[in-house]
Each structure stands twice: as C-alpha cells, then as structure tokens.
C-alpha cells in the first residue's frame, strides 16, 4: 500500500496585482501545476526545490490544510481534506518556521494537551515521552515555557510533539531551517533512526542538499510547481554533474593550475576556482597535487546547492 499518492494535483491561487493607483487585476498563479508521484510505506523521501517552487503547498495539500484545485490525492488511502480528522490522527506534521506548541506553556504541558487531543493511550505516551526525552535530550528544558526556548530546542520539542501519537507518516517542512550545524546533525540523526527503527514514512521538504544527502535515498525535485526529477541522489549527481568548487588562495599569482580531475574555472590574482566532481576526485588528492605545484595559503570548498542542481536539470532537458 502506498503511503502517499498524488495524481495530477494542481493548486491555483488568485493573486491581485496592482496596475494603477486603485485598479488591480486578478492573476491566476499555479503554485502547483500538475504533480504526480507516490511514496511507498517506510520510504524516506526528500522533496526539494528552490523557494517558491511549490513544496509547502504540496505538503499542505497532503496534510489537509489546503484544498487542491484539481487532481487526486490520497494519504494512507484517505482524502486529506474530506477525511481530515481521521488522517490527522495517523500523521505527524512539523513546520520548521512555525511551532505547533503552546507559546505560553512549558513543553511538558504542551505534550500533556496533545496527549488528550490525540487520545494517546497512557502506556504509549509514557514510552514515547521517555524515549524522545532521551534521544532528543529534552530533559533540560522540558519545564521551560516554549517562548523561552532556543530555535534548536523548540525544533526538538516540535519533533517530539509531532511523534507522540506514533504517526505512520511524518511530514517535515524545512525542519533544519535556521539551525546551526550541531543542531542540524542531531535532528538528522534522530530522523534517520526513526525511519529505521519504527518504519515511519518520512516526507521532508528542504532546500538544504545536506539534509537529502544524509537522509534520503530518493529525492523529488520540484520547480515552478512541477516535478522535474524523481530518483536517487547518486543518479542526479552522476547525470547532472553537481560539481563542487575548490577555491585556493596561493602565496603568489600563478598561471591556471593544471591538476588532473579538475578544471580551472576562474582566476583572480592569487585566487583560483577549480571545478571538480567529488565522485571522481577527492578534495585531498586535488590539494596534494596543487601543493606540489604552488604554495597554498588558504582553501575553501563550495558544494553544489539545490539551485545548481535545478539549473543543471533544466540545462540537460
């Protein structure tokens, strides 16, 4: 059975554009312009795309928040807006930008209210609270009002809150946005574990390629409301050449370096940009080649971001 099934889903918004002092015209904008895909149970799928691509709108249609303009949606064989309450019991939703918790209550009280809202049996509740408390390290701030939590703490609290009722699917909208490296790593580790140990299906929107790399075998790339790629990350990288760039600062100006596995893209005084593929050449071997030819003062590596990947997918089609 599929966890999620979408067929030719569309969402059109009316946007009013000012054309004069008072006059305005109505423009129909397709936030989602005919999307089809399925997600099997137990899968962990990354849903990526640049800002405004339609990621959040899709998630909102899957969770019963928005009514699709047309098309077919089923989540756990339920129609999200029509069977919203039934579906809500079986899914968990986390929006990175917004909290589900009660702003003026301690985290523990929010959990307690959710326990009643979702009618969680007390043994399940106790077990989950104990486990998430430990894995997400909530103990130190569980009695603090939510408004006083840091973003990372709040995010951990939100994750636990969305999972207390043992949802079959977890929808995450930008769960790592604004978090520092340590906090991101912690959230990713938790999600990977959840997927393996509990078999929870996870659909995650992000524009952080690292999220996908660490978590998802499969990724869906969406842009301008359409799916432009559906497959695994390795294939994307192999086929669309997501190049990394090594930026080296040399001690003195030099002609473009001739290094196997990399091409010099740009030279600016002593600074050079070398484009390479991580699958073919490691940064370390590049560096040792460079060091044998010139004195290196400093280096930096720029990894491809989702905008690069999207651009390349377009370029090839």
């Amino acid at each position, binding site marked *: 059975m599929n966890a999620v099934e979408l067929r030719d889903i569309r969402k059109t918004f009316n946007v009013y554009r000012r054309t004069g002092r008072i006059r305005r015209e109505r423009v129909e904008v397709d936030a989602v312009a005919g999307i089809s895909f399925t997600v099997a149970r137990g899968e962990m799928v990354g849903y990526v795309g640049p800002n405004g691509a339609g990621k959040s709108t899709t998630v909102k249609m899957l969770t019963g928040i928005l009514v699709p303009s047309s098309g077919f949606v089923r989540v756990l064989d339920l129609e999200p807006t029509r069977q919203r309450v039934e579906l809500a019991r079986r899914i968990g939703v986390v929006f990175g930008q*917004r909290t589900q918790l009660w702003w003026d209550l301690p985290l523990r009280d929010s959990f307690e209210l959710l326990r009643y809202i979702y009618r969680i049996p007390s043994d399940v509740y106790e077990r989950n609270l104990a486990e998430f408390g430990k894995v997400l390290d909530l103990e130190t701030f569980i009695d603090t009002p939510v408004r006083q939590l840091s973003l990372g703490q709040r995010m951990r609290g939100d994750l636990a809150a969305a999972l207390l009722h043992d949802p079959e699917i977890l929808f995450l909208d*930008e769960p790592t946005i604004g978090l520092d490296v340590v906090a991101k790593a912690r959230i990713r580790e938790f999600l990977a574990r959840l997927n393996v140990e509990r078999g929870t299906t996870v659909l995650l929107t992000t524009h952080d390629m690292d999220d996908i790399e660490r978590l998802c075998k499969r990724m869906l790339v969406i842009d301008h409301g359409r799916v432009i790629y559906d497959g695994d990350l390795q294939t994307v990288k192999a086929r669309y050449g997501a190049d990394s760039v090594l930026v080296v600062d040399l001690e003195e100006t030099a002609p473009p370096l001739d290094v196997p596995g990399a091409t010099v893209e740009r030279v600016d005084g002593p600074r050079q940009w070398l484009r390479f593929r991580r699958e073919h050449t490691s940064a370390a071997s590049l560096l040792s080649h460079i060091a044998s030819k010139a004195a290196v003062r400093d280096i930096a590596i720029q990894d491809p971001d989702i905008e690069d990947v999207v651009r390349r997918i377009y370029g090839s089609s």
Partner: protein
Amino acid sequence: MADAAVFLRLAGSRVRAQFSYRLSFLLQIVGAFLLSFLDFVAILVIFLHLPRLAHWTLPEVAFLYGSSYVAFKAGDVIGGNLDKLPLLIRMGTFDQVLTRPLGTLGQTLTVDIDIRHVGGIVQGLVVLLYSISRLHIAWDPVRAVMFVAMIASALVIYGAIWVSANAVSFWVMDAREVANSVTYGGNFLSQYPMSIYSIWMRRLFAYVIPIAFVSYYPALYILGKTDATHSPFVLRFLSPLVAVASVIVARFIWRMAVRRYRSTGS
C-alpha cells in the same frame, strides 16, 4: 462527545494562563462590570425623559436588556475570541488548527477564553434581578420553562451569530468591524422593544439576523404584553427552534469558509 472533554481541557489551560496574573485579572473583571453599566445608563437616560417607550416601562425594557445581556456576555467569553480569527488566518496559524484531529470551530473557540466578560454577565444579572423584582410576572410552570429556554436560546443564537459573522474573515481579510457591527450591534438593538423599529428592520431582525428571538418575542409572553407589531402569536414560542436553525446555518457557513482558507507562503 469525547471531543467536548478535550475542548474543556484546552479552555481550562487558557483560563489558568490568565489566572497567573491575578491582580490584572481581577481588575479586568471589575472594569468590565463597571463599563458594561454604561450600556444600561443609555436606557436610563431615555426613561428620564419618557415614562414609557412604545408602551414599555423601564422594568420591562430592563427585562429585555438583562436577559439579552447575560446571554450575550456568556457567549462573549467564548465567541468573543473569534475576533482573533483574522490574525490566525493572516499569520497562517490556522494551519495548526487543521493538522489536529479535532473540529476546527471548537479549536478556534478555545484558542483563547476571555474570562473578564464574567463582569458583564454579573451586570446583566443585576439588571435582570432588578426588573423581575419590580415586575409582577404571573409566574407559572410554562413561564418558568420559557424563561430558562429564552436565556439558553439567546446564548445559542448569539453563538451562531458570532460564528457566522466572523467566518467572513475567510473571504475578506480583517472584516472584524463588519463582524462586530453584527454581533455587538445586534446585542444593542435587541435590548429595545422591536416595536420602536421600522417594518423592514423588524423583518431583518426576525428572519435574517434573528435577534428578535433573543428576548423580545419570548418576553412578550412571559410579561403578558400585547405586541404592537402584530406578529403571529406563535413566534413567542419559537426561540428554541430558531436557535437550532441558526446553529445549522452557522455550521454550514463555517464549513464553506474553512474550505476557502489559503494559508500563507511557507
């Protein structure tokens, strides 16, 4: 009805949050009590100049006012929070309401509970008790039942008006003033005998925004008054039915409205 227990718990958590600021909480209740007397002062001023208003004496009008006001303020404790709806919609926080396995209306109503309106309820009760002590109502079982049914129906009718009027926010951003003119305005107009209004206003209040059923029609029977507007006699007993119909209409409007929700960009 297990949901009702959950809503009570949600409401309880909101009330407790207000109790934590005890002094300001008390001041607000006292303030609401005093402020709401100004509404009644308007009526007193009229009776300083007139012995009767369209054949209604001061205690009789006070009876209309008190019964309507008690129900309205009781509804305000819960329904008054609907004026936060535009904010929920504009900020996209209504998303959260939709991701929980509970009815959207119940959740919206329990987003906050405004206990200070208790001051207004007390004021309405004071006026109501004054009027009953001055009137010589021929109490019998029918009148007693009608009295209770009148207050209960009024509460439900006001609730339905709160919901229907505020649901407009889903279509028009920040239609709060429109909604308030129907809710607060409706309560204000229901405090006077319907016979002082023109014919088209009476029709509006009887059949569209049914505030004539809040107190005027049942009060005609309880007080044994003749109706200067010559309305059908049966209307005096219809408040509970009107209340049920209002709820059905309000539910329908609310459901349509929620489908219009468009959330905000991520």
